[in-house]
């Protein structure tokens, strides 16, 4: 099996340094250390497990800034065989529509049985790019997968999709696009051999001109959404903590709410 995993470098939230540029309210990416988007790591882990069980290899596709190769090496160290990065100054400020178009363009001409993506990213959090890519490529779209069972002989894949009441079992012909969830299992730590091997793996960088886009326009200039401003949330008012036995605590909470005519 050949599986493409869509990965995105995102600001490391543990660094505490995330900030927006004051002039255009875009993320100041070069100023913040980047990591592989955590949900994408779950997708990558699921893909690696599938190729371990069924054979084949995992390749990465990403659209990101010029600093992305360092971050993508970390994903290669986990076990992906190679990667393709689309990076171009003209893509700065792209919205989800542009991102989906570019990723779909990068996937065109590639051979794969499955495309896996994380549920959303920790920076933008829109969670719509995988659906956009599937739509543009005409792929079956299987979201919120808690279990993935491909049948390479039949050319189909079966997915348990998480639903509010349990899960639904979906089956689709391959190739298909699947959105992974954390229910698929914890991402592995890269082994030291994996880190060393990642240095010599192929990471192909493409400019926008190398990606077939048809008539579609992409980039910040055609973005359908724009951030007009940004404010920190107001500080939270003083918190009152009630540390009484349950009966007394309930009585005080009810009294507090009743006093303010909330109940």
């Amino acid at each position: 099996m050949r599986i493409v995993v869509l990965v995105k470098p995102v600001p490391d939230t543990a660094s505490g340094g995330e900030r927006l540029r004051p002039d255009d309210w875009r993320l100041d990416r070069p100023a913040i250390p980047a990591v592989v988007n955590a949900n994408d790591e779950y997708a990558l882990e699921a893909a690696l497990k599938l190729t371990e069980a069924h054979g084949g290899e995992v390749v990465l596709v990403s659209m990101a800034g010029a600093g992305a190769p360092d971050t993508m090496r970390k994903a290669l160290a986990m076990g992906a065989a190679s990667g393709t990065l689309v990076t171009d100054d003209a893509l700065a400020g792209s919205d989800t529509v542009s991102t989906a178009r570019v990723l779909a363009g990068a996937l065109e001409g590639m051979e794969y049985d499955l495309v896996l993506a994380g549920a959303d990213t920790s920076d933008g959090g829109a969670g719509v790019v995988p659906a956009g890519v599937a739509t543009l490529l005409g792929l079956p779209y299987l979201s919120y997968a808690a279990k993935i069972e491909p049948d390479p002989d039949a050319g189909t894949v079966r997915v348990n999709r998480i639903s509010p009441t349990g899960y639904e079992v979906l089956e689709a012909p391959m190739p298909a696009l699947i959105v992974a969830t954390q229910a698929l299992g914890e991402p592995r730590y890269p082994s030291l051999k994996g880190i060393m091997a990642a240095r010599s793996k192929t990471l192909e960088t493409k400019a926008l001109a190398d990606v077939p886009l048809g008539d579609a326009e992409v980039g910040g200039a055609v973005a359908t959404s724009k951030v007009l401003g940004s404010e920190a949330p107001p500080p939270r008012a003083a918190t009152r903590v009630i540390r009484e036995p349950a009966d007394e605590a309930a009585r005080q909470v009810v009294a507090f709410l009743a006093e303010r005519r909330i109940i």
Partner: protein
Amino acid sequence: MASSTSPPEPSTPARPSSASPATPTPASTYRLTEDQAALRDAVRVLADEQIGPRAAEIDRTAEFPWDVKELLASHDVLSLPFPEAYGGLGGDLLTVCLAVEQISRVCATSGLILAVQELASLPLMLAGTDEQKQRWFPDLAAGRTLIAFALTEAEAGSDVASARTRARRDGTGDGADWILDGSKRFISQGSVADLIAVFAVTADDPPDAPPAPGAPDAAPAPAAPTTPRHKRLTCFIVEKDMPGFSVERVEHKMGIRGSPTAELGFRNVRVPDANRVGAVGEGFSIAMRTLDRSRPGIAAQAVGIAQGALEVAAAYAIERKQFGRPIAEFQMIQAMLADMDAQTEAARQLLYKAATEIEAGAPDAARWSAMCKLVAGDTAMRVTTDAVQVLGGYGYIDEFPVERMMRDAKITQLYEGTQQIQRLVIARALTARR
């Protein structure tokens, strides 16, 4: 894959990030290579997330952490010191030290697993044949087997050449088996190892009187027909299943309690000549060259312990309030923390320099290795003692890790040569030049 124009979401990553801003990157004129930094960071994540949470229990139960050994093996950490041709990663001495340091930062016992695997393999690395390396290194590199280094005896500690464990040929001819008889004491991981690098006397004549410590090596008396002190030992690989080999007991220790320190018995153990490492009589030289390369590993353990204690003390000082202020705002605490940081960094930089010099084949490798162990061991003891002081009464109880770190630090002043022996080695190198 959302627009970069969206505001950042206050989202929680699915698991902690690998970057840890609280841990300073050693900055120096001697920059680590990209590979070294990447491997160090990977080991740090593994240590912080998987080993650190086990450290207190490993210390309390004093049981060898087989799960940590498996973790280190499955992530290729144990393969770092071994050549690529034998399934290793071919890491240089500095890279091995970086890994030992990061593991020891959270658990000194666990750091020793890698340090001992490296140190006990050094006789084979330095003097083994290609056949011997082919036979043992792939399993050692994969962590399928463990190896211990058996030099010390009850009556032969610092005075290595006075060892009494003997090996005699059974029969004549160059390929004849050897019969080993004697015992070894204070052997790190001796009770869990599959292979033991044992140093035994192969000279038939009685030993000379030892020279006074600190005196230059006395030339053997011209008339005496004795084998020189540094030609009396030979190194052998004993396999744990060989009849006559036994673990006599395991010591109860102050620190590094999860690392079993064993007394090993050899009762007429038959060892094939194929298990002899290096030439007959070369053992003392092999042992000394091993120590030149292995002392930095212990220095790395010491630097790691000091760094771990410093981080706990700094974090505590920021949290702990007395007289209405965090104690980190009091100058007496600040001065202690500043000294701890500066001393730890100084020990670290000497270690990195020493490892680099030794790897490059410096003629004064013994001096570098003794200096880095001396400084790092004393630093670990001082910094962990001060860390306990910063935490006050809380530092003295096992609710916080610094009392364990202080107990663990003590061993780094004792093994791989006491601090007194390190000074002797340094002084000899210094005065021999005159």
